[in-house]
């Protein structure tokens, strides 16, 4: 479970970095001064309202500095000026991160739905899957305690070590799947929780 989660997060961050390089933002400002004047300023009532936005510093953000240079006719008592700030980089990073995470989850879900059953059916995986029933702690605490590795005889070569690593990953995944299966049974089949 930990492995797959880490994998998802890792890929997400990688994609994020790639996308950050590609996308050079158009000039969207981080600070604005927005002045809004309502329609009562214009007796004829044709122009409903006026919005002024500029990016001057906040000390110049008032009606005199923003509205008057453009349309001196508007009475300043009908206008409201506010300085606002935002962080475009945060928004960009967060949104791209979210897209990546959702995509990763989606791809992983498709993998589990379509490809995984085919792989599982293959008889090549004939190693024994012994589940450790003895200590049924929370999945989280199992991250803490070292997972009991299946003893690999003569694991001197890299290939053997790699295989044992894959075994660990597969075992973790198996365990995680078992947990999710149990949760699914509780909620979708037995309807004993979260109704």
């Amino acid at each position: 479970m930990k492995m797959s989660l880490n994998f998802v997060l890792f890929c997400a961050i990688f994609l994020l970095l790639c996308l950050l390089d590609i996308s050079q933002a158009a000039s969207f400002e981080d600070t604005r001064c927005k002045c809004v004047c309502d329609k009562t300023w214009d007796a004829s009532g044709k122009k409903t309202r006026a919005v002024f936005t500029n990016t001057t510093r906040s000390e110049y953000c008032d009606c005199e500095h923003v509205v008057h240079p453009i349309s001196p006719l508007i009475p300043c008592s009908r206008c409201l000026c506010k300085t606002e700030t935002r962080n475009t980089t945060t928004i960009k990073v967060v949104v791209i991160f979210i897209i990546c995470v959702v995509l990763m989850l989606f791809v992983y879900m498709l993998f589990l739905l379509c490809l995984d059953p085919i792989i599982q059916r293959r008889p090549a995986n004939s190693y024994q899957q012994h589940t450790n029933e003895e200590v049924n702690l929370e999945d989280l605490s199992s991250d803490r305690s070292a997972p009991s590795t299946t003893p690999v005889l003569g694991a001197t070569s890299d290939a053997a070590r790699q295989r044992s690593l894959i075994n660990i990953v597969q075992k973790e995944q198996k365990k995680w799947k078992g947990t999710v299966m149990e949760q699914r049974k509780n909620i979708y089949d037995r309807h004993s929780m979260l109704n």
Partner: protein
Amino acid sequence: MGEKVASDQEFRLSPSVATVDQVIVQEEEDASSVSRNGKDTRLTLSASVRDLVGSSNIMDTLDDLPPGIGQYDDFHTIDWLRDIARDRMRHRHIVKKRQEGCWEQLKGAHDAWSGWVCVLLVGVAAGTCAGIIDIGATWMSDLKEGVCLEAFWFNKEQCCWSGPSLNSTSLLADGECSQWYSWGKILGGSLAGPGSYIIGYLFYVMWALVFGLLAAMLVRMFAPYACGSGIPEIKTILSGFIIRGYLGKWTLLIKSVGMMLAVSAGLSLGKEGPFVHVACCCGNIFSYLFPKYGRNEAKKREIMSAASAAGVSVAFGAPIGGVLFSLEEVSYYFPLKTLWRSFFCALIAAFVLRSINPFGNDHLVMFYIDYNEPWSLLELLPFIVLGALGGLFGKFFIKFNIMWCRYRKFSKLGNYPIFEVLVITFITALLSFPNPYTRMNTSELIRLLVSRCGPEDDTELCDYYRNPNITDPYKYSAVAGEAVNSALWKLSLALIFKMIITIFTFGIKIPAGLFIPSMAVGAIVGRIMGVGIEQLAVTYPDSFFFANVCESQDKCIITPGLYAMVGAAAALGGVTRMTVSLVVIMFELTGGLEYIVPMMAAAMTSKWVGDALGREGIYDAHIALNGYPYLDSKEEFTHTTIAADVMRPRRNDPPLAVLTQDSMTVEETESLLRNTEHNGFPVVVSRESQYLVGFVLRRDLNLAIANARKTSEGVVSNSVIYFTGHVPTNSIGPAPLKLRKILDMAPVTITDQTPMETVVEMFRKLGLRQTLVTHNGRLLGIITKKDVLRHIAQLQNQDPESILFN
């Protein structure tokens, strides 16, 4: 045969031992030095003084025990007393070791501040999660309508943030924004017209379906526990129940993503309730960094109480409200230390969220209001009416939602969770697009409703004939224009739609909160009422009622936004039955102390009306529906039953399964473990005398025996298990197995004549998992928390078998 001999010996030996012990204990008690926990009936029963003194050191050597001792199985109840005692032992151990050197001192210091560090981390994590979710949800919601082509990561508001043209001031209306491309504009090429509308409609429904389907699939695939609001379960968990995986990493990830998708799908649900779940997940995950909390379920719940405060803190930008929410609604055990930690955690979370600034408005929530208009005393009347309406709505909502959820639980509908999500999404999207007030994000709707009409507002709701000759035209009420009328019509339709669809939405298998939809319903009612009263005041400014409201003929101050705020508070209060925390949350939202009294009046009326119609709030109702073992501390127990009526074994049951302290072999114990399903066994001096020694948990016993068989030499099936302090060394036969370490020597006992009122109170206040019942000092039976719950359910004429995982 062997057993008989052993018990015979036991029988011969025990009376003398008991008498000696009794004498010594008597002396000790006279000196009043021993009785640490006042009601120690066991003192006079069997435990020797040596045992008693020794018992304080049991846990010191817990490290030698196999891993897993002191943990609990899935769907079990925790024993608060035992866990707190364990923590005290651990703490004493650290204090003792502190003298041993610098390193140990450092370790002690780390232990002392680890609680604060943990809540700091939880606060940071909760704030970050909330920031990400807020940004993501607004962006995805707007994706239904269009996209910001130049910078796709902006939502509509952010896209048009810098004004129609960059870096220059202009005189254009706000509505047109050249950077934002609606789907109709991209595909149809035109901004208005039926073609564009139809394309927009199609895309809206399509995106909603995609988001809804994705949310439902992700939840089903990766973390089924991520569905729902989570607050009933958090309440149950905090009251001392174990649901493994409910607060895990996958749940956190899927709940966060699912929340964004579900809100973006335009469903009538909010992300504020699930924030509590998300924050609690953070709390659980970070508590594993600190063994003090990670390995002790009772201590972990202290962190989780603080985390739930952080959840509300970031959901509403209300740190104090969050702390009070944790205290009033969620937490079960809330010592002062936890209060301060919750305060700190909520503060950190709010601070982090504020520095992320997800809405770009320098506030933590979308619907922040900053007006400060006065209200007159006579307006309390409509506020109280709003409160009553809120209470009515709460009852109506709870009744039908529970009915529908029960139907879903027991009918075939429950077998098609994803299909159900799709259908609800389709209906919601189809019906909400035509109405602008349902089409927009619900948070935005609330913002619109609670805000005052100012110069920057150009919406239908703000179409008033203002008098431009007064100095401050927006302060005073004015005659409404045509557009306000049509807005009210649309709002009424939106109200009916939201009230009905929320009933069906809350409970589908995606992350779904209840705060926002119920607040929206209340806000709509409030706004409509506010506008009505405003127009009355404007029309009859001279009448008796509005004498205080109006300074002069055209200077009446009635703020419809305030009515919407009060209405929102009332509806939320009616559904959740919160009072104090609700009012604090609301006034933290409004940022002024001006409106506390209206909120209080509305919240109180809402609770009264709601309670008069039905006692339980939505969360308690869902706890009851699911049969979680939650012993409500709000309800009173008023029946006259006694402990003997509730205790097990019943009259016709087989006798209580007990262990003896020094005569049972490993084999006998194992067969007892195989043949029974009890979660713990009392240990007695002998089967004949039935004097109580202590209590041992099944899980611990299993682990200890399995561990001993593996590691210690000479332990075979014939080995005798000793729970006593001294083991006869000269005995022939296989090596003995000493299990004193796992024995709880201080189980809480009551007599069989104890009234259930007292017993229930003990279960609530002390957080017991079980209590042993004695008669004339002999062990008679046992009462567990689930027995108590079953008993209460029986007395209330409910089905006692509905309690989860009996």
